[in-house]
């Protein structure tokens, strides 16, 4: 597990500018080896513009991190494409493609250092080989993919390809043209008043009997539970060389530290899982990894 690297996924929530900058200043001293930056959820969010993200990227690069610029998952308009083209046109940092439009632009630019993001729906080795031939140097498995299915994909590859798995965070489950945060406040998306700003972990949606079920994060819907693969790491790291931690409102760096201790062999996976209870905004789940409904939590036998 020693060579396993830790990645901090893109910030999925909309935090105030200073809070975001402060967060990444701390990340510079964190155990993260790789940091994904940029807005992937909603084009209306603008506390940080591309130039601001590039400044953050430069600082993290100077701190020795591998920096990747993540791109938007749902591309709807010409201005979305324009933003995408600007990210692809810079060649200082790697790019995470979260839509086939980005794949086309990166392949056209003949870049061979990009990362195939989790929303590209790569479920079999033939599709993954196609992305590799188009320049992908790493991929993130779809969140709904089980550990067994992931092993099958990797076994079908001619040459190994660096593989990343989401190992911590509320699961991004769906994207829509509609903004559910704006809807909650009886607003339309075009005049949303940026009501998601400062909702550090989104808004919890509960069933009518009070169970937390989902999280509203603008146009994105996430799980309420926290996907937590700490206890599963010995198995996960047989397939994945990179473990992704998704930023959350508080304790993200503590979470990274828990992962570091398991990867370095300082703590057992079980002990780290136990210690992670204080860092979770809701109860844990890991069903997807075990080929079960994602909200389930499967203990190891």
């Amino acid at each position, binding site marked *: 597990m020693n060579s396993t690297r830790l990645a901090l996924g893109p910030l999925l929530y909309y935090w105030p500018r200073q809070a975001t900058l402060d967060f990444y200043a701390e990340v510079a001293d964190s155990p993260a080896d790789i940091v994904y930056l940029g807005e992937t959820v909603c084009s209306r969010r603008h506390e940080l513009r591309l130039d601001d993200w590039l400044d953050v990227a430069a600082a993290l690069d100077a701190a020795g991190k591998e920096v990747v610029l993540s791109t938007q998952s749902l591309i709807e308009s010409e201005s979305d494409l324009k933003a995408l083209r600007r990210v692809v046109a810079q060649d200082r940092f790697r790019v995470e493609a979260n839509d086939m439009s980005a794949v086309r632009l990166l392949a056209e630019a003949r870049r061979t250092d990009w990362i195939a993001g989790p929303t590209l729906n790569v479920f079999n080795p033939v599709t993954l080989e196609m992305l590799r031939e188009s320049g992908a140097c790493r991929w993130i498995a779809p969140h709904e993919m089980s550990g067994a299915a992931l092993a099958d994909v990797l076994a079908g590859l001619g040459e190994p390809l660096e593989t990343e798995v989401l190992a911590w965070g509320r699961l991004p489950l769906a994207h829509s043209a509609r903004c559910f945060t704006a809807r909650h406040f009886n607003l339309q998306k075009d005049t949303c008043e940026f009501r998601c700003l400062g909702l550090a972990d989104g808004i919890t*949606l509960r069933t009518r009997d009070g169970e937390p079920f989902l999280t509203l994060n603008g146009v994105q819907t996430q799980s309420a539970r926290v996907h937590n693969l700490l206890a599963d790491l010995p198995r996960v790291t047989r397939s994945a060389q990179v473990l992704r931690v998704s930023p959350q409102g508080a304790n993200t760096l503590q979470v990274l530290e828990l992962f570091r201790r398991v990867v370095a062999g300082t703590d057992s996976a079980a002990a780290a899982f136990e210690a992670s209870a204080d860092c979770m905004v809701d109860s844990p789940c890991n069903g997807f990894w075990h080929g079960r409904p994602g909200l389930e939590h499967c203990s190891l036998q």
Partner: protein
Amino acid sequence: MTLSQRIELVCPAGSLPALKTAVDNGADCVYVGFKDATNARNFTGLNFDPASMREGVRYAHDRRRKVLLALNTYPQANNWKDWTAAVDRAAELGIDAVILADPGLMAYAAKTHPDLRLHLSVQGSATSYEAVNFYHERFGIQRAVLPRVLSLAQVEHVIANTPVEIEVFGFGGLCVMVEGRCALSAYATGESPNCNGACSPGKHVRWEQTPKGMETRLNGILIDRFGDGERAGYPTLCKGRFDVDGETYYAIEEPTSLNTLEMLPELARAGVRAIKIEGRQRSPAYVAQVTRVWRAALDRVMSGADRFTVQPAWMAELDKVSEGRSHTLGAYYRPWK
């Protein structure tokens, strides 16, 4: 204005009777699926075995209509051969086009059956011309079905920038999420549109009369609760009532159907080449009713979009078969977002 291009009416069929009904009522194309997980309507008792498919293709071709086959779920490493076998069977049966979502499967189809026409499924999540053109360049897709997330102006912009024919949803069940990018059902039940061809599958549904009302659950999760006077709907998980910050409401979407009939002249002017009707899981009676109305409406538009008006009788017919007996323009109409 008379339109230079014909707009095809693409109708659903979950059975041979439904296919024949669609053809008899004026569908230009009927889209179907095999009885397995290779398509996004993998429901018990639905879809075609090879014999009924052969008969369906013969019936449609005798009347110079087309049959399109949805193979629009994502094959996995361990079941890859089931999907490629389905592509082979489609070619052998003389299917007019296969509707695919997985790039790997497109590569297989393009290489193995170069004459087989490829359509990009809505499950492929292509929402921009850059994405559509990617599939065109790589695999030669000739048509793309757009996810139900774009506004009319955005649809028009895609059409203006691609050589690929664009098909859009005109009527039927409404996915609120980008198709192909929704794992809500997988999260709740372990079965997803992407991998299993099912959303909120029936085997996980429970209806239970309680002192608080009729409760509908999906794998134990309470999706909605109905009072005495309310009609209890199917618990599709994005169309339930939930509690957000102390307020109980349809937090994601109401039970409603998409209906773009009133937008037909604009869709025609935008250059849309085909209109898709959702509902392979619905009855032949639904197929008959909806196909009849849309055939009449499309004929009217193609003979002169300027003079098109929506007949109240059409809307009345369509509302009868709509989810929740109501309809919306969905994302085509910006304020919906």
